[in-house]
């Protein structure tokens, strides 16, 4: 039997993705940078008044119960979801095929499903200095009290639009346009040099 050829999604970070320790790591590695490469990244949008229906659909498909309110989100490690604008949500899954699952439950009366899996690059920063490094790039409050676990934020760094979800006490997942991802990655690496960083 012939072996199946599975198309491999290429990373836009590849030429600048150097596994290992960098910067001032001799005094300790204070952040770990990774490209998480989820199989599915979706944008869901509810028509006005249908937000609750869409949130129920997210719960039905992913098992994630989103808290009410702006930027509310949740993650279970394999899946993540958060609000990034009124009536709009980003939903991520490790595995492929999430768009097909949502297309069955998000009816035209509720809203829309847009598959951005190939259009966004997911970058994770984790470690005791994660807040410190991100605060150098983005003009938002990264303190746990202002940016709770699971919550999402839409913001920009030098016009590079970025969605950020807090997925741990000292861990953040960022979604950037694929075409800007390598430039953003290099900026993030430079910003991490002073604290010592490891690419995994």
């Amino acid at each position, binding site marked *: 039997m012939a072996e199946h050829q599975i198309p491999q999604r290429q990373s836009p970070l590849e030429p600048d993705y150097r596994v290992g320790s960098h910067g001032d790591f001799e005094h300790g590695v204070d952040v770990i940078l990774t490209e998480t490469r989820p199989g599915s990244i979706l944008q869901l949008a509810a028509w*006005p008044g249908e937000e609750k229906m869409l949130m129920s659909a997210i719960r039905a498909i992913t098992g994630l119960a989103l808290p009410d309110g*702006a*930027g509310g989100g949740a993650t279970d490690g394999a899946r993540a979801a958060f609000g*990034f*604008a*009124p009536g*709009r949500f980003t939903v991520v899954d490790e595995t492929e095929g999430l768009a097909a699952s949502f297309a069955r439950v998000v009816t035209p009366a509720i809203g829309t499903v847009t598959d951005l899996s190939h259009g966004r690059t997911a970058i994770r920063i984790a470690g005791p200095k994660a807040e410190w490094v991100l605060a150098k790039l983005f*003009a*938002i409050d990264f303190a746990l009290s202002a940016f709770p676990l699971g919550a999402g*934020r*839409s*913001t*920009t760094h030098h*016009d590079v*639009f970025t969605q950020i979800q807090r997925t741990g006490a000292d861990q953040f997942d960022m979604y950037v346009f694929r075409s800007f991802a390598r430039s953003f990655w290099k900026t993030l690496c430079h910003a991490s040099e002073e604290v010592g960083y490891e690419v995994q």
Partner: protein
Amino acid sequence: MLITCPYCGPRDVIEFTYQGDGNRERPNPASQDLEAWNAYVYDRLNPAGDHNEIWQHSGGCRAHLRMVRNTLTHEISSVAFVRGAAANTKSGGKP
């Protein structure tokens, strides 16, 4: 200057785009009233004080916002979603 987006909270002005004077009333697209079109395109109040403005949180949630900004002090006394304001207008009240 900080603008408090009703969705995102306080953000730097660099995340926002000015979308124009919020006092303009667009004539019916079929209107041939040249005076009305001229006023829509050119007439501005240019007040030294509170001014109705439309902004977009283009570097954030991308919502369009209706704001009152003081042109002397930059103080922003109100920010609301345009979508909500439009809905109010439809139901009778002026924004």
